[in-house]
Each structure stands twice: as C-alpha cells, then as structure tokens.
C-alpha cells in the first residue's frame, strides 16, 4: 500500500510545486485564484479523459501516440511560461510600484491570465493522467488488496504532494514584495527550462531527435534522481542526473530566450508615468 502512496505522491509533487510557484508569482494579480483554480479543474478533468483514452492513442504512429500527446502538452506549457516571463517583464515595474494597477487592468478584462491558466492546466493534465492510469490500474488489477485501502493510500499520496506545493507557496509568500518578483521570475524561468529539458527527452524517446541523445555526465552517485532531494530539485529546476546534450541545449536555450525576450520587451515597454515632482518648474 505504501508503494501506491509513494507513486501518487511523486506524480502529484511536480504539478503541486509548479502551481505553488505560479501562485506566488501571481500574488498581485486580482482574481488569479479563480484562474488558477479553473486551470487545475480543467487539467484534472482532462487528465481523467486522457487516461481513459490512453489505450486508444497509445498504439498510434507505431507506438508513439502517447509521446505525441506528451510533446504537445509540454510544448504548450513551455510556450505559455515563456510568454508569461516576457509579459511580466513589461509589467514588473508597474506591479512592484503599484500592486493595484495590474489588478485593475485584469478586472477591466484587458489582461486575462490565459497563459497561466493554460500552463497550470497542462501541468495537472500531464501528471494527473499518469496518476489516474495508475490508480485505475491498481483498482482493476488488485485481486489481493481491497479497493478502499488502495484509494486511501492514493489519497494520502495526493494530500502529501499538495502539501509540498502549499509549503512552497507559503515559503515564497514570506519574501518581501519587492524581492518576490525577482525570486518568482527566476523560478518560473527555471520551470520553463525544466519543461524544455523534458521536451528534449520526450522527443528523443519518440525518435524525433537523433543527435545529442547520449548522457553528457552521470551525477547519480552525487545526487540520485530518485532521492528525496533529487526529486524536489527535478520538479523545481529540472535536475537530471544523466542529462543528454539535447536536454542541456534546450534548457540553456530557453533560459537565454527568456533573458533576451525580457530585455527586449522591457526596453519596448512604456515608461511609468512619473509622479508630478516639480522638476520643470
């Protein structure tokens, strides 16, 4: 039974940490709880649908149907996170200067956080589908254990995973507002890079990538990927004990893309109206 708890915990952890960071990053956004909640709900419903359809599309395209779904989900999440990073950089100063200004803009309806909604939905969809498949499989296949205890074990894993997400959020929330943006922007950029690395892995697994698919190094003796710290660092910043050249390229490439994008966008952003100080008098 403990095995079931651990598996569900591992699957939940990644999505929960993702949502915890996004929630902290958007603390100032009016109505963001509703948007994030909707993202989780849509992602969860999608995950159930995806799990039920899994045996249909698994055989597609010579057995890589599931990878194609995975690649689509990862690409969407990646695009949304990059979008968010760049978007925030054009509004970061406004956010830091006046928390209400953006709240007002969102309230008026001209700044709906679609990107975050989609990114959260994708995170829940991906991890959730695997969880549903596992739980469904255990319940269908277990002639030995009874259904109630299996469900309880899985629920315990789910709660533990969510708890880590809440802890991350609570921890980040203690950071003073003026530093919060720097911290969360960095974390969201690392999440994007981590998703890019997973995308490179998925492309190699499906056979789309042929070059740079061998591991560059092996740091599993130093920090095993399935250790507690390894798991957390994997979810937080994409730690991989045996990354391929393609994974590293994607990881660094996305970080550079976000850096360049935010620099470009903040240069093009309209400067804040300065308070009327008597400089021209």
């Amino acid at each position, binding site marked *: 039974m403990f*095995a079931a708890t651990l*598996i569900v915990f591992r699957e939940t952890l990644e999505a929960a940490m993702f949502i915890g960071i996004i929630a902290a990053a958007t603390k100032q956004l009016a109505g963001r709880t509703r948007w994030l909640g909707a993202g989780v709900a849509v992602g969860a419903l999608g995950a159930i649908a995806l799990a039920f359809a*899994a*045996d249909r599309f*698994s*055989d597609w395209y*010579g*057995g*890589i149907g*599931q*990878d194609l779904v995975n*690649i689509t989900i990862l*690409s969407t999440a*990646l*695009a*949304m996170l*990059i*979008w968010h990073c*760049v*978007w925030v950089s*054009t509004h970061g100063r406004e956010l830091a200067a006046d928390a209400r200004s953006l709240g007002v803009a969102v309230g008026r309806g001209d700044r709906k956080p679609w990107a975050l909604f989609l990114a959260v939905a994708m995170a829940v969809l991906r991890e959730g589908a*695997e969880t549903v*498949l*596992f739980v*469904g*499989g*255990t319940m*269908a*296949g277990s002639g030995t254990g009874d259904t109630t205890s299996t469900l309880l074990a899985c629920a315990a894993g789910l709660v533990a995973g969510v708890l880590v997400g809440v802890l991350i959020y609570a921890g980040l929330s203690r950071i003073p507002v003026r530093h919060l943006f720097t911290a969360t922007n960095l974390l969201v950029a690392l999440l994007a890079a981590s998703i*890019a690395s997973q995308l490179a*892995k998925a*492309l*190699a*697994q*499906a*056979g*789309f*990538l*042929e070059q740079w*698919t*061998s*591991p560059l190094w092996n740091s*599993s003796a130093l920090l*095993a*990927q*399935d250790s507690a710290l390894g798991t957390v660092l994997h979810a937080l910043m994409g730690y*991989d*004990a*045996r*990354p*391929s050249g393609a994974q590293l390229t*994607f990881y660094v*490439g996305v970080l550079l*893309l976000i850096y360049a*994008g935010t620099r*470009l*966008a903040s240069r*093009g*952003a*309209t400067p804040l109206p300065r308070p009327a100080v008597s400089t021209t008098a």
Partner: protein
Amino acid sequence: MHTRRSTLCLSLAIAACALMPVPSIAADQEYLLTIRNHRFEPTELKVPAGKRVKLIVHNQDKTPEEFESHSLNREKVIPGGAKATIFIGPLKPGRYAFVGEFNEATAQGAIVVD
C-alpha cells in the same frame, strides 16, 4: 504599443515551438520486450553499443505499467494490452536497469550493452 508587445510574445512562443525537429526515417534495430504477470520477458536484453535502438514494449497484462529507467533516462506509461515504442541510446557498454514502476517488486529487467 500593446500589439507590438503581443507580437513579440507570440513570435517568441512560436520560436520555442520551432525548436522541434522533423521525424527521422532512419531504420533502427528493433527489440521486443513483453510484460506478462507484472514481469518483463526477457529480463535481460542485449543491444549493440553506439547505436540507437527501437524498443517495443508489449504490455500483455490488463493493467497499465510504467516503463522506467533512470540509467536510460526513459519513462513511459503503457496501458493494458498496448504496445509502445521507446527509442534508446546510443549507449556505452554497460548494464542499464529498468523497472515497471507500477509493480516494482516483480517488474525488473536490464538492457545489457556490449
């Protein structure tokens, strides 16, 4: 101003997607792995070094299984009764263990590269 910024955002997002390459048509050597009663058959699979190989995992159980290997850097859920393709390598000589994560007690095996 806003349109220009959205255009920039959009082009960055598209650039990210454009990183995806096109499928390859190269013929890879195929290897079959079967899952039956939460066990892999064969438990040891020999593959050549330095070559990418195509692993076909046929899950003959009714329940799903997750093929997972940290040393191969691969993980994939295979629904009950389904066949899944996993590309691995090129690998250096050595032993690469894999498990069925959903039934780790019995589902164990290894890829042996020489």
